[in-house]
């Protein structure tokens, strides 16, 4: 409790007839006045209207209120509004509490007005009980450095670096290989425009090299990351040499890699003319296929969409153990394949099929598929392939096609035609396996250093798949390109620009307010066991001189540490034991 005795003002909203049509609001107002520590209560037609908000502000001053409870709708939508009203009246906004009597009362009990009114009273009583224990909180302000680190010099990383550099931010672009370019260096042409990759790659590399705001560091890897949003300290290693840089934001564009089947899967590695699509790309680019083949058979979804998609038990893997998690995923996927659709392979196969047809019109190209997934404008691309006599044959995916040596150096593919329901034997000169994009092993190290979780598929995980697709759970760290899952060139560029925009929003503001709801360690009680350090998903706890400390900028306020601390030495501010138990008690109290 604050220094002065709580004086709570309760404002009960009719929400037109949304609440007032079911709950007897005047009765609740009268009831609220009887509750301990309530100094004032009133009802409003719409508390969220200007008149309603003014009424709160006036009452705070007139009745010297030091806590405010609004009983209306859900705090998920309206808490910020009422908090700002409190702030404007000079009351710390954390001394505000909401009672949800619309979504969780009147709207779900429309036909039980008596019981709904009783429940509304209970909800108000619980909110008042909690408000009694509320404490003012401050949101600390952080300085944000206006420099950025981009990890990965592929098309996504370069695009992100250029976007930021063109806005005037200093960018360190780190690439582990000796040259910029990433996966595109190995590709020949790009679907669906059939452009040479160099047409896109070369100008981008040049723009990066010419830009004075971008410092490109090749043959360099990130070896350590410390700090938090706005103030990351990153150690970069280059052939044993080390260098520290300080940046405000980090964009991870470490990309993905093409899956190479283990030796023996689809007889890969046993015959020289069984290749992956990526290897075919290189063969085509270098003109290595000289003799026109009679037939080329492509097999889709090799090592993709395989195995049951099961939720891996992430629970057994606290943050310090991401390595073990990825190792487990990699091991499980090695034989059975990856569960997801890699989304680029269909178009890639069609592209290479068309390229073969262009070069060798007489060659029979057969694509064995389970499902063809051509989205958006790629449907036209698929039609083009069909017009060019590329044959699409649906086979029974559960039966892995067998490839054997036939006469005259030919291969024979044995598969089951899904439409006719019969075995087919296809003599051919080349077998091409369409394999998915999979996470890089380096990702695990990065994930661990950056404290960004990895998804079930092994990619770096976005903060929210739909709402925050380039953010990570760590403030100031963003994802670009295939680091978060298979993407083609346009998608990589879109996500890179999005990540750059998110990073520049932070850096342009130069300052940000962080979470006020953080955990606090009572040093007297703490015995330095380190459990909080182990369980925190954000690395917000660290041990120093035998005591745990919270890094406020990293803490997200989940409160798990408070619930777990063996010594009960950690308090989760704004969700303290007292506050929650006050609500429990109030909920179960007989109406007073």
């Amino acid at each position, binding site marked *: 409790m604050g220094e002065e005795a709580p004086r709570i003002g309760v404002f009960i909203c009719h929400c037109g007839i949304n609440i007032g049509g079911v709950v007897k609001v005047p009765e609740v107002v009268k009831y609220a006045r009887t509750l301990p520590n309530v100094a004032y209560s009133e009802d409003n037609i719409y508390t969220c209207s200007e008149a309603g908000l003014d009424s709160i502000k006036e009452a705070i001053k007139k009745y010297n209120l030091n806590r405010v409870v609004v009983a209306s709708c859900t705090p998920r939508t309206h808490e910020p509004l009422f908090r700002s009203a409190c702030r404007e009246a000079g009351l710390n906004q954390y001394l505000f509490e909401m009672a949800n009597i619309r*979504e969780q*009362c009147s709207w*779900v009990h429309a036909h039980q007005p008596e*019981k709904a009114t009783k429940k509304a009273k209970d909800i108000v009583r619980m909110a008042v009980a909690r408000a009694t224990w509320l404490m003012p909180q401050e949101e600390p302000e952080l300085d944000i450095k206006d420099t950025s680190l981009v990890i990965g010099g592929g098309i996504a990383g370069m695009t992100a670096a250029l976007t930021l550099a063109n806005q005037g931010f200093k960018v360190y672009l780190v690439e582990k290989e000796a040259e910029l370019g990433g996966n595109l260096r190995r590709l020949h042409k790009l679907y669906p425009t059939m452009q040479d990759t160099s047409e896109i790659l070369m100008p981008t590399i040049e723009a990066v090299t010419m830009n004075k705001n971008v410092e490109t560091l090749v043959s360099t890897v990130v070896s350590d990351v410390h700090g938090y949003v706005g103030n990351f300290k990153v150690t970069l290693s280059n052939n044993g040499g080390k260098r520290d840089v300080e940046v405000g934001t980090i964009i991870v564009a470490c990309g993905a890699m093409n899956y190479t089947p283990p030796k023996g899967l689809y007889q890969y590695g046993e015959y020289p003319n069984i290749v992956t699509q990526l290897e075919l790309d290189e063969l085509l680019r270098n003109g290595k296929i000289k003799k026109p083949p009679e037939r080329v058979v492509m097999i889709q979804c090799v090592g993709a969409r395989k195995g049951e998609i099961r939720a891996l038990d992430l*629970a057994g893997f*606290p943050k310090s*153990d991401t390595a073990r998690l990825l190792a487990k995923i990699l091991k499980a996927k090695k034989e059975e394949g990856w569960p997801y659709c890699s989304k680029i392979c269909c178009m890639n196969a069609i592209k290479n099929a068309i390229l073969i047809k262009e070069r060798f019109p007489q060659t029979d190209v057969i694509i064995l598929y389970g499902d063809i997934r051509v989205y958006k404008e790629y449907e036209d691309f698929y039609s083009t392939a069909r017009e060019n006599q590329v044959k699409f044959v649906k086979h029974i995916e559960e039966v892995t096609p067998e490839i054997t040596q036939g006469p005259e150096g030919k291969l024979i593919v044995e598969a089951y035609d899904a439409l006719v329901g019969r075995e087919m034997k296809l003599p051919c000169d080349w077998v091409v396996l369409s394999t998915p994009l999979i996470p890089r092993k380096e990702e695990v190290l990065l994930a661990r250093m950056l404290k960004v979780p990895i998804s079930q598929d092994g990619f770096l995980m976005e903060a929210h798949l739909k709402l925050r697709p380039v953010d990570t759970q760590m403030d100031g760290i963003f994802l670009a390109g295939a680091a978060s899952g298979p993407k083609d060139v346009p998608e990589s560029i879109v996500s890179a620009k999005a990540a750059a925009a998110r990073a520049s929003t932070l850096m342009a503001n130069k300052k940000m307010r962080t979470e006020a709801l953080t955990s606090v360690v009572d040093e007297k009680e703490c015995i330095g066991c380190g459990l909080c350090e182990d369980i925190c998903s954000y690395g917000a706890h660290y041990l120093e001189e035998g005591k745990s400390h919270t890094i406020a900028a990293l803490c997200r306020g*989940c409160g798990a540490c408070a619930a777990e601390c063996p010594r009960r030495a950690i308090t989760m501010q704004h969700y303290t034991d007292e506050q929650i138990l006050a609500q429990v008690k109030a*909920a179960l109290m007989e109406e007073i």
Partner: protein
Amino acid sequence: MEETEFDPVILAFCCNWCSYAGADLAGTSRFEYPTNVRIIRVMCSGRIEPTFVLEAFKDGADGVLITGCHPGDCHYVQGNYMMERRFAFIKEALKHLGIEPERLRLEWISAGEGEKFAALIRDTTQRIKELGPNPLTKTDAAIEAFKAQRLRWVIGIQQAGLKVDEQRYKAVSLKIMKDEIERQMIIVEIKEKGPQTIKELAEATKISPKEVLRHIIALKKIGVVSEAGEKEDAYLYKVS
């Protein structure tokens, strides 16, 4: 007729990001459900301590619902998993206390599952009505046990990802929980009625004298209880 008049009170802990939003969606969608539930919002189900649940039962809750994000969906990465592991301990503790474990439920509700939330409240209310009112057995000892360092450690090491054999961990940890609850029962008993002999404590707590002796030895060792004279050729024990 009497059963139909019993109007249970069910306490529901909802996490801000998923299940509380699911409850909101039930409202926006106007899915009706019984009025028996009282919702307490926390940021994450990982914040919910066993003591909150036991305090609720102590104060007369007929049922307690813990809800959170679906596995893998936790806004805070793994708070719901932590809750799930704690949940197993609370369930077991309820059995020791003579409270039907069915009174406590853990369910995952996403922000999009308004209908599921409404159905859950309907179903839970029905189930609790069938169970009847909270038996109001004493939960103080268990609350103290869950506040005590030893039991919290046992739950905590699992969260920290220590590599232990699961079967063995389960057996040992539940045994430790039982011990801690029984020891707290003994302490509560002595605090309430003054120094007692092992025989008296066994009768009062319904723990076998052999076990009470084992607990007394353990509590003596850490200085929590000590001898306080004799009665009928047996030692009396007090809380030091």
